[in-house]
């Protein structure tokens, strides 16, 4: 190898292929951590060094694993999460003990609520100091107990291999989730013979796989055959299980329309004729009404979140319910179901496929078409350009200009809902968003993580509000130092928009603590040596998006949108799903309110 090296003074770059097999050698715990990561297929980790994790960092340079230095550990856990969501593989973050570990917490909880497989490695004080309130000691396994799928405290070097293998196995198997491994400094410094076996991990009490019961599957098929007004509710389980094709076949054979949850978007192509769109609090009126009028709901890999069901007492009162779910603890948690099918969604759909019979339901199809006609899509395209910029414009045009092929990572709030409504996702893993925990500050770091996993031919767009962006804007510097290219669309309305909207609707219009100032985002980009642009009218939008796409580095676009715009329709929290605040309508040819994003019958 060395004799072929072009320049003997410069060592050849490390690569998986040229790594020596060090099984049987005596290695330090620090080295063993990287040996395990390499064998678990890890190419990139997101982290921040510190005292208790220094031995691991010192050994890192011997291994062909990319390290991304974050600016705050919360960014590291979001990046690992973004990587996991974009790839379906386990994302890894690294932090030191104490504050390093506690800073990961928000990202871990985000991953937990959205079942994202990440492994968090934290340094811990030496085992002899545990419990002594030593410098930077915190009981992080205690802290993260309720927000991890499982966690471990490693006190000696011999535990590192088995514990880390279990951690990866638990994170990615069954219903995925975050696993934290807290490794004492002494365990990193001690040495032992490195042993590795490719035998599968066995845990006596862990049951990630469930086999669906035949009679439940038969009952579901019977309900499907008899249903007159069925709707499929497609959740993130479709994406996690890789069931997009299986679901498409199922829909094509059964003719049943599909409503998607926020995290289910992309799991079933938006352009499919049977895709109704998003359901729930900001779902389209016809979708929610169809669910309320359905006589059969097929819940596929979704968990009846309160943002999806509205008032549980009045949720789809006339519908029988079939729930296909991998996690038995989700059955009957929020909504009582008639037929539970516990198992991997893709396998269940494949199991059901031969039993499907094409049933014509002309009355139901006509009813849904009627509902759509009544409160159809916003007519963005034909909207007169009044010189104002609406967030809906930005998202809609972004969708058109990127041909719907970008990986979009959103933050949380109004822009997130507009993204879900106006960017039509045809592919799984093309929308990355914090659904369950609703974590502001998620977008930029998650996008950085996603950039490492996404198809290099696809652009990664961050869609973020002015509030959320400021929570983790420090990661702009990470983009610079690590040479990462993402496009950032700040939907800047000068408010914490969703809270402002609630204040307008439910709190008498008292805008308490929601007007928010921002730095000059163009100058901020400039200060980082990044490209910054400002867009204040729709006419300038396309040029800016194209310029951002063409620019080699990270770009920040400050979209100055209408300040007091609201997301419609809206089911107020706890209200009946069919009870929506709809968009302002045209009355006698004129818009009833100032908002021009009115309802029309014209399609996009």
């Amino acid at each position: 190898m060395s004799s072929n090296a072009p320049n003997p003074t410069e060592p050849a770059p490390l690569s998986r292929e040229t790594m020596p097999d060090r099984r049987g050698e005596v290695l330090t715990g620090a080295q063993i951590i990287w040996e395990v990561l390499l064998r678990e297929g890890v190419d990139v980790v997101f982290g921040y060094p510190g005292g208790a994790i220094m031995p691991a960092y010192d050994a890192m340079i011997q291994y062909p694993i990319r390290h991304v230095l974050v600016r705050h550990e919360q960014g590291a856990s979001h990046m690992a999460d973004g990587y996991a969501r974009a790839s379906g593989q386990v994302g890894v973050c690294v932090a030191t003990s104490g504050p390093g570990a506690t800073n990961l917490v928000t990202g871990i909880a985000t991953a937990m609520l959205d079942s994202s497989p990440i492994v968090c490695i934290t340094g811990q004080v030496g085992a002899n100091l545990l419990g002594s309130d030593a410098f930077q000691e915190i009981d992080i396994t205690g802290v993260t107990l309720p927000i991890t799928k499982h966690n471990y405290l490693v006190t000696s070097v011999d535990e590192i291999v088995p514990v880390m293998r279990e951690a990866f196995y638990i994170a990615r198997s069954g219903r995925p989730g975050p696993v934290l491994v807290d490794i004492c400094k002494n365990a990193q410094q001690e040495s032992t013979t490195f042993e590795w076996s490719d035998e599968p991990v066995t845990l006596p009490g862990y049951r990630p796989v469930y086999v669906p019961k035949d009679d439940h599957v038969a009952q579901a098929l019977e309900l499907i055959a008899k249903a007159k007004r069925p709707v499929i509710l497609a959740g993130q389980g479709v994406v996690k299980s890789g069931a997009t094709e299986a679901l498409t076949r199922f829909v094509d054979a059964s003719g049943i329309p599909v409503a998607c949850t926020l995290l289910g978007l992309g799991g079933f192509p938006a352009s499919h004729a049977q895709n109704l769109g998003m359901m729930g609090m900001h779902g389209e009126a016809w979708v929610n009404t169809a669910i309320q009028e359905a006589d059969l709901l097929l819940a596929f890999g979704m968990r009846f979140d309160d943002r999806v069901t509205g008032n549980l007492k009045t949720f789809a009162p006339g519908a029988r319910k079939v729930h296909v779910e991998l996690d038995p603890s989700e059955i009957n948690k929020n909504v009582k179901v008639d037929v539970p099918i516990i198992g991997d969604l893709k396998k269940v759909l494949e199991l059901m496929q031969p039993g499907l019979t094409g049933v014509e339901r002309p009355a139901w199809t006509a009813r849904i078409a009627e509902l759509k006609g009544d409160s159809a899509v916003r007519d963005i395209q034909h909207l007169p350009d009044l010189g104002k910029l609406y967030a809906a414009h930005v998202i809609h045009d972004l969708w058109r200009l990127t041909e719907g092929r970008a990986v979009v990572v959103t933050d949380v709030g109004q822009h997130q809902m507009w993204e879900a409504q106006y960017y039509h996702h045809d592919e799984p893993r093309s929308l990355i968003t914090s659904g369950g925990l609703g974590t502001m500050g998620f977008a930029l770091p998650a996008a950085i993580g996603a950039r490492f996993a996404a198809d290099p031919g696809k652009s990664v767009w961050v869609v973020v509000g002015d509030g959320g962006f400021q929570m983790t804007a420090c990661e702009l510097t990470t983009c610079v130092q690590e040479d990462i290219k993402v496009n950032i669309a700040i939907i800047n309305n000068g408010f914490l928009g969703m809270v402002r909207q609630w204040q307008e609707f439910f709190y008498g219009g008292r805008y308490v603590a929601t007007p928010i100032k921002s730095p000059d985002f163009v100058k901020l980009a400039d200060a980082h040596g990044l490209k910054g642009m400002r867009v204040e009218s729709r006419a300038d939008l396309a040029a800016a998006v194209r310029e951002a796409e063409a620019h080699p580095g990270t770009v920040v676009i400050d979209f100055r949108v209408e300040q007091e715009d609201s997301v419609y329709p809206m089911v107020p929290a706890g209200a009946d799903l069919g009870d929506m605040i709809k968009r302002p309508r045209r009355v006698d040819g004129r818009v009833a309110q100032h908002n021009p994003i009115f309802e029309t019958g014209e399609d996009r």
Partner: protein
Amino acid sequence: MSDVVKRTFVIFVEDRPGVLNRVTSLFRRRDFNIESLTVSESHEPGVSRITVVCLANEDTAKRIEANVYKLVNVLEVDEITHKPRIERCLALIKVRADRAARAELIQLCEMFRASVVDVAPESLTIEAVGAPGKIQGLLTVLEPFGIEEMVQSGAIAMTRGSVPKAERRRPVREIQVA
């Protein structure tokens, strides 16, 4: 819900540090209310046995079971509320007893198959074992004498009869790797 009753769960867990904390933390964060909890060794090395009694309806009971199963260190969960079972608590009761009252108290103890384990000039300490209802019954009759102190264990429980072979816990569960 009308079918809220006291339910008894037997949980087998790996005997490792922190496992009890994982189980109780789960009950707390899912808002399941624990009436009593006992934990000890089981017949099997490396396996601890937890008996949890909590108020729950049928649906909640199923979700308790499913949630406890999700814990990696949990080997087996069995709700035995509706199975023929033996359920026992242990109580120590210190009751005021001068010389006049002593004989009557000893007689009461015999009726409850409780025993006097400590005698002092002004008090007796009674040890009682039985189903939770029996302990409650004993406490009611002792009340007039004046209870100075009482301590009670949570319930431990076991199903009656021999365990059918199909339901017998395998020492180490083999799991399929996906």
